[in-house]
């Protein structure tokens, strides 16, 4: 029986892994179609129906292009950088609870890669490691533009991590647990954290944009100042890994936003559904709801990218340090006072 749980867990982990990659792949397609729609053009529509085979064509192109390593680059770190970026991007989805429990035999198995009671800290830790791939890649290229991109990525990441952590603290104060599953279950019955923590949600979302290096905070690769930023010297699939890891990060960030603020797999009327359909079907509906919320936030990331122009670097820093961090601290104090007064 012990082995059975292990097998189911391995299947869940493999599924999460495959789904992260699959969603990231089709995010590239969705991003280009959406950009085209917002700019009143067609977008990729030649490869397959609606251009659905475009990501595969892109992958084939990237794999078959020339692998180029600059002569003065630090060869091993040059290869290590994009690998690390992809590795950290894929690791963080392990603790996300995608659904309630599955009933297999007489056991209830949670739809989650690993259940740890420090889930929030785990994903936060992995996110904070994400910048190493960019830093190492940018430094190892031995190019001034790459180095500037890497240095920008490092300072941006550290600055916004603080505000992000402080925004999460307010959520943790409400749930009293670091376990992502418990945070989701606390939001059962429409008690979504976003209603109690609107400011915290906005701060968290802003920081998530900065941590994923998405526009308006994509300064590490801003092409009108730094050629290509940290990936100037990269070609072929190594460049592909850098770009692709951004989409995986975007998926993970969207999933974490849904879990922390939008009730994860909770949806209105779920108790009614749970009474009338088999347990596994109810769980499946919950998983679908969770993915719908995640897709909405992925769409939101893209929507912002094609709407708001890039910040200037000093604006980015003063927004992080002078607005978001004080606001997040004020949010913690207000949350603490409310909890003290009303509980």
């Amino acid at each position, binding site marked *: 029986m012990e082995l059975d749980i292990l097998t189911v867990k391995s299947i869940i982990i493999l599924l999460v892994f495959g789904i992260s990659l699959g969603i990231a792949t089709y995010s590239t397609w969705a991003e280009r179609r959406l950009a085209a729609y917002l700019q009143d053009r067609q977008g990729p529509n030649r490869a397959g129906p609606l251009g659905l085979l475009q990501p595969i064509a892109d992958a084939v192109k990237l794999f078959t292009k020339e692998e180029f390593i600059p002569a003065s680059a630090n060869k091993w770190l040059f290869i290590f950088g994009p690998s690390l970026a992809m590795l950290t991007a894929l690791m963080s989805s392990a603790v996300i609870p995608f659904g309630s429990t599955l009933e297999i035999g007489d056991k209830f198995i949670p739809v989650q890669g690993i259940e740890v*009671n420090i889930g929030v800290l785990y994903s936060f830790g992995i996110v904070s490691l994400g910048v190493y791939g960019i830093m190492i890649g940018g430094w190892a290229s031995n190019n001034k533009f790459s180095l500037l991109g890497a240095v920008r990525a490092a300072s941006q990441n550290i600055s916004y991590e603080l505000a992000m952590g402080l925004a999460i603290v307010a959520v943790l104060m409400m749930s009293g647990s670091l376990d992502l599953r418990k945070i989701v279950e606390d939001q059962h019955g429409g008690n979504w954290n976003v209603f109690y923590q609107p400011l915290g949600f906005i701060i968290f979302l802003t920081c998530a944009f900065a941590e994923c290096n998405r526009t308006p905070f994509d300064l590490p690769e801003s092409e009108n100042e730094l050629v290509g930023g940290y990936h100037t010297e990269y070609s072929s699939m190594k460049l592909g890994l850098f770009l692709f890891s951004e989409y995986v990060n975007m998926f993970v960030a969207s999933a974490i936003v849904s879990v922390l603020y939008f009730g994860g797999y909770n949806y209105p009327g779920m108790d009614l559904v749970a009474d009338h359909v088999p347990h596994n079907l109810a769980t499946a509906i919950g998983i679908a709801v969770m993915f719908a919320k995640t897709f909405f936030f992925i769409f939101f990331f893209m929507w912002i990218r094609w709407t708001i122009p890039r910040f200037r670097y000093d604006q980015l820093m003063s927004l992080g340090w002078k607005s978001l961090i004080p606001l997040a601290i004020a949010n913690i104090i207000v949350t603490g006072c409310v909890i003290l007064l009303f509980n």
Partner: protein
Amino acid sequence: MAEKLFYFLTFLALASGLMVVVSRNPVHSVLYLILTFFSLSGHYILLNAQFLAAVNIIVYAGAIMVLFLFVIMFLNMRTHNEPMAPIWAQLAAVVSAGLVLMVLVAATKASSPALEAVADTDSFDSQIGLVQTLGQTLFSQYLIPFELTSILFLVAIVGAVYLGRREPGERNSF
């Protein structure tokens, strides 16, 4: 299984710690130091102290080492322009490192009865490293040291801001 993991992690920690000192390239040193922190976090997980493991990664590997790397990249130190330390400085470093080792060994030996009590598998509380236990201990038994530490951090932050602030009329040197 746990024992094998312990030996693997210990080997990794010692080997990467050694490479921090031996590497000629400062960026490599920092990367090896990060690997050392990871193997230490592995040890914390073996001790069932998940919170400490996660915080070790977030604070040291995720923030402090990023700043280290940031500074080293900005200074752009290379192997060829790194001056060799004079022989007396090397000797002094070896002697002081040896003294630190002696103090550590002596401290471990002196506290061995207490360590044995902790290592006793029957009375060992496996929940001791979890967040709840740690939080309750910090905010009841060790409340004053904890608050004093936070004041220390506040002083350090104010000091850093004071040192880093731009004098009136001074231009940004970047």
